[in-house]
């Protein structure tokens, strides 16, 4: 389910606050111009929020392609093989400070089980669901 944007939350907050203020003004027999002032304030706040929304366009990080990201942030990146190997390939595993990490005893016992099962269940689950589908077909 999509999460609500900050603008939606601001809109809700403005409506909630003013609804309560209108309710208080109604029950406390406020002066005639109080309601008018509140209405004008609400209109002003809503229009400022709308202007803010128009002025700035929000784009989700996942909507960017790699090339767009490179262009938007003024980065240096090339997929040309010669450039890539020279400039952009990070041989992190060959750095002198990177040493093979000895996992703890607990992790050594747990990790093969989890990683093996994740890969196995992914593949086998597809096989089983395929078999089930195949078995069900004659009944149809």
């Amino acid at each position, binding site marked *: 389910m999509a999460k609500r944007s900050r603008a939606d939350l601001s809109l809700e907050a403005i409506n909630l606050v003013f609804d309560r203020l209108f309710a208080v003004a109604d029950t406390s027999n406020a002066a005639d111009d109080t309601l008018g002032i509140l209405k004008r304030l609400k209109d002003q706040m809503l229009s400022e929020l709308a202007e803010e929304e128009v002025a*700035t366009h929000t*784009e989700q*990080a996942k909507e960017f392609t790699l090339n767009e990201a490179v262009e*938007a942030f003024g980065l240096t990146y090339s997929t040309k093989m010669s450039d890539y190997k020279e400039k952009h*390939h*990070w041989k992190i*595993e060959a750095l002198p*400070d990177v040493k*093979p990490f000895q*996992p703890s005893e607990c992790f050594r016992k747990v990790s093969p089980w989890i990683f093996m099962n994740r890969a196995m269940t992914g593949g086998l689950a597809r096989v089983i669901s395929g078999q089930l589908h195949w078995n069900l077909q004659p009944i149809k």
Partner: protein
Amino acid sequence: MGWLELFLDNYTGIYNRSSEAACRVGLDLLLCECIGALVSWLHSSLVILLKHKRLQQGKVSAISPTQPTRDGQRTPTPWDSVQVHCELSFTHPINHIPTFEDIVVGGRVDHGVGIIIKSRRKKAPNRLFHSLLLCAEAKFDGRLSDALSQLIVYLASLRQSRVNRGRSDTSVYGIATDGLCYIFVTITHQGVIKKSKQFDLMHGALSTVLGCLKYILETAMSMTSTSMAEKGVSKASDELQDDADDLFDLSDTPYTQPNDEEF
């Protein structure tokens, strides 16, 4: 019913294989193992160092300063304040390239490893975040390249924010993963993207991936301006306020601001 059939029946029935949750199991384990090891390594190193120093001075202490005392207190280390935050809210305005002006980049970083800094600034959130490492995950049936593009946007925003604040070293680090395959990414201070080859845990890369993860965390930690080990976490936190990455909003989480429709 055999154990495998039972396991498969439960697994395929309970888990949604298109969700990122399945991918997170692998990464969570690795991060927990790596940060846990860094914390305990530093503790044990300090214990050895202090014991050696005391022996040289002819003093013998029954309780190590780095081990908990009876009231549960001990000397804090920098790694004690490192935490992993999931679905970290993130907004950043792009304002230096004319064609992209007035665009605000938003999203949620799947995993953010960093230090929480208590803010005393006025008009600032109480808790600020200094990032060491950002991670983006591909869905089980998704492509790692999509996660990579998303990660580059997060890292580039973080780098640009640090450039705008005049930081001396704006290098940023991240990982794109689906839980089994890992690509390490950095954007250098000069703005050059560097990415590693793809490491696959199923092909014996576990030790290498953990080694790289440890290296990145240690490198990013060494970039922080002060040594918390020497000055204590609370003092260092005050000085670290200027190092906070303002583009992260720790108070904006889907769990404290749930969607009404979900109830």
